[in-house]
């Protein structure tokens, strides 16, 4: 029991070797008044069949609704091979690859991952991953303060069109290190951050500008103008990007005349299931000149004593187990298993498969927007092109509409009224390649019924 293989004879022989009368004696250095009296709050044990039944019932309770929610986590088809290999014990139950000779599989895979992510973002180097897209964005802000030696202000400009949860995570993470995050307004007609709106910062010391592409509304920012604006003023550019979209959109390494300085993003779309928010992984890339300011693990290729190539963790002098209080971050892990899934996913998809995924998702979102805006009282909130998801405006509060839809097994999107009250009854919707025309039509028909019923009431 408890996955403990000991027989009574084993225990007796082991205690004899130790010279202890019983297992209890092994705890004789612990003051008796500290010993646990009871764990009554933990239920009795379940065997495998019983826990299987319980979990299956709980999963069934959650159901399988038809979802049109995006907002930073996207439902894509995941090839069967991805998790069949990822859950092999040799990947799943391996430790961090500190012992390089016994971890060449994981290390080589990370090196392949770093290469793929660098190519996808058009950047020079990538690390072995961060916790998620939000924490990678927060770490990028901290990194920018270290990397931009000319700037003394630690001021980071953050568009209001950045995912609101990312902004919150950046605040939590960097609040005690003196970083100042300043919100940039967005154009409520277009849903983007106009470069002209930055004029009021001209002549000021700005450490970095964050640019999310596509932004939280699904709108496409003028990344070239924003990047050039920042660079002309000595600020670094932190790109926050969707990896699927990068198959079709200009990569951060090519933004403006010099390219972004740090590019991060949520890796979940690359073969990771939605799973209520995690585990996902964040990716982080930069220019070679900033590599020593990058947090997290990095794998490099080197030679062994016999002159054969092999892989190892490198630049560890940045990390907490060597540098302790002077480390670039306290991060010690990466999200290895998710990187495994993503590397297999990117191999199976290739540039062409990824581009098709992005194009198919975009086509479905356009079809969704076209369908839903045929419903009276529903229109597109912003003019201009969007990618992957879009904001709709309804003629009535969004929450009751979403509730009625969810009663019909449809998750109709994310209500933005709590995040962006100035947008009124705004709803963020998303469709990926996993949705069919029939799914979209079902949503349209239900929305039409719900709104008509609400009008009649």
């Amino acid at each position, binding site marked *: 029991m408890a*996955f403990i293989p*000991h027989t009574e004879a084993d225990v007796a022989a082991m205690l004899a*070797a130790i010279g202890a009368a019983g297992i209890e004696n092994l705890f004789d250095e612990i003051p008796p008044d500290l010993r646990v009296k009871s764990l009554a709050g933990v239920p009795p044990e379940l065997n495998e069949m019983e826990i299987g039944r319980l*979990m299956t019932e709980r999963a069934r309770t959650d159901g399988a609704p038809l979802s049109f929610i995006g907002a930073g986590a996207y439902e894509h088809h995941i090839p069967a091979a991805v998790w069949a290999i990822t859950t092999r014990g040799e990947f799943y139950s391996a430790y961090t690859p500190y012992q390089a000779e016994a971890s060449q599989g994981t290390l080589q895979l990370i090196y392949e991952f770093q290469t793929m992510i660098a190519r996808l973002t058009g950047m020079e180097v990538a690390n072995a991953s961060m916790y998620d897209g939000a*924490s990678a964005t927060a770490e990028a802000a901290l990194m920018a303060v270290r990397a931009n030696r000319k700037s003394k202000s630690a001021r980071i400009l953050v568009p209001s069109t950045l995912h609101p949860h990312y902004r919150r995570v950046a605040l939590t993470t960097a609040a005690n290190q003196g970083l100042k995050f300043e919100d940039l307004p967005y154009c409520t007609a277009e849903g983007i951050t106009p470069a002209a709106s930055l004029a009021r910062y001209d002549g000021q010391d700005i450490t970095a500008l964050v640019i999310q592409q596509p932004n939280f509304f699904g709108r496409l920012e003028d990344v070239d103008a924003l990047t050039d604006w920042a660079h002309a003023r000595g600020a670094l550019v932190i790109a926050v990007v969707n990896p699927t979209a990068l198959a079709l959109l200009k990569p951060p390494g090519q933004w403006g005349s010099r390219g972004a300085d740090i590019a991060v993003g949520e890796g979940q779309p690359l073969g990771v299931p939605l799973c209520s928010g995690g585990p996902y992984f964040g990716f982080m890339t930069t220019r070679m000149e900033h590599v020593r300011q990058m947090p997290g693990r990095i794998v490099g290729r080197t030679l062994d004593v016999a002159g054969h190539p092999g892989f190892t963790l490198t630049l560890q002098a940045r990390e907490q187990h060597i540098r302790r209080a002077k*480390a670039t971050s306290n991060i*010690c892990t990466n999200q290895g298993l998710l990187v495994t899934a993503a590397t297999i996913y990117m191999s199976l998809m290739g540039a062409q498969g990824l581009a098709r995924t992005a*194009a198919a998702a975009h086509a479905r979102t356009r079809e969704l927007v076209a369908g839903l805006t045929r419903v009276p009282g529903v229109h597109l909130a912003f003019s201009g092109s969007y990618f992957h998801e879009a904001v709709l405006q309804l003629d009535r509060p969004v929450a009751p509409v979403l509730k009625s839809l969810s009663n019909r097994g449809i998750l109709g999107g994310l209500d933005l009224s709590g995040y962006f009250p100035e947008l009124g009854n705004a709803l963020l919707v998303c469709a990926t390649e996993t949705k069919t025309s029939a799914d979209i039509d079902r949503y349209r028909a239900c929305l039409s019924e719900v709104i008509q019923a609400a009008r009649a009431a």
Partner: protein
Amino acid sequence: MPMPEKLIFEYSHAGRGASDQWPRDPGPAALADLPAKLRRVRPPELPEVGELETVRHFTRLSQLNFSIDTHFYPLGSCTMKYNPKACNQYAMLPEFLARHPLAPETHGQGLLACLYELQEMLKEVTGMQSVALNPMAGAHGEFAGVAMIRAYHRARGDLKRNEIIVPEAAHGTNPATATMCGCAVREIPVDAQGDVELTALAAAVGPNTAGIMLTNPSTLGVFERHIGEVARIVHQAGGLLYYDGANLNAILGKVRPGDMGFDVIHMNLHKTFSTPHGGGGPGAGAVGVGARLAPFVPIPLVGKDGERYRWLTEADLPQSIGRLSAFMGNTGVLLRAYIYMRMLGREGMQRVGEYATLNANYLLARLQAAGFAAAYPQRRASHEFIVTLKRQARELNVTAMDFAKRLLDYGFHAPTTYFPLLVPECLLIEPTETESKDVLDAFVSAMSQIQKEAEQEPARVTSAPHTMPVRRLDDVRAARQLDLTWKPTAQS
């Protein structure tokens, strides 16, 4: 010896692809609305490979790894116990995998019930008042813990407290975390028996003390016997106590950090609660707090109103340190920990600490009998212990690193080496409760055999490993001639 495997890029052929896995092409008209200046001009150079060669490549890579499923991993401080298959299977039920993080609570009562009960069970086994599950790794939990300590002092208007005390043997994450939270770090020594030097502690605390970060049992593999006194000194000085849960497996079911006087704890669910390490993550670093820090826990938590579960957010916890992840942390990892805890139940939970300690003390006794020197021979081992090879290094010129590498040839993952730094030539060994006596005996035989080799044929040991896919790697070259991404021209 397993053959090294070429890079996936080297399998690539223009025009090849696993096209059965791709969606249908919507055609160029689907993209007509995207402005040309925002489009990518050249496609990214990802590999062009078929499904079978992809499957073979990554399967072969997996075979170059050691893992718990294939090898014994006596890695001190890492708790590499068996990851039950049921935990994976039932956390990956299709409804759990498909659920969107922003789906309404009505479509998540099953998940939320699991997370709520996990919070409750973790409170019970740690003796804490409130638990937040969202930190995504141990270091992330540490960050949350120290950020809460700072928020607590700040909320009281006690603005000077920005010093964190750590014992010199602490994990590197402790001082790094203190720095990330804007604190100065003050290290204090431990005595010859491995306990914190109380006089040094008493001298270190004062009006600037935010708190102390402690691991108990310590990284030296022994229980901090003066923990009551440590708690009294720190609390009297106005500081709080942080418990680094790295070694919780040692005391699970036997002692609770809350009862020892700790105000905040992070738990490595990937250690004590057996979620997989995944080759370096995902972990999960849930935090537990006492009453004083309860208002500051990171959101979201799971609450219960009557029979309904719901997320607790800023509205419920206005003093929260805030969000640590875009959504709810590593939810799938939390489900695995939940399943593990339910399978163990309260009886199993108590056996964990007992058998982890039995295995460690047995292995220590056997290794001592075989002539190896314990770093703290007069102390009980906790769930782990330190062997020092300083004699072998001095007399035979064979180091702890050499033993570690030679163990790989014998089919054992190396113990933790050169940590903690204050013990010379050390191996920190943690067998965990899931290993059988047979495995421990085989490990002792391997160590004895390597000792014999070190005496008779030291080059065999100092040049190990001999049977791995690669020999010892040139780390200096790796750091000086950075090769971090593959370039066709740099092919070797």
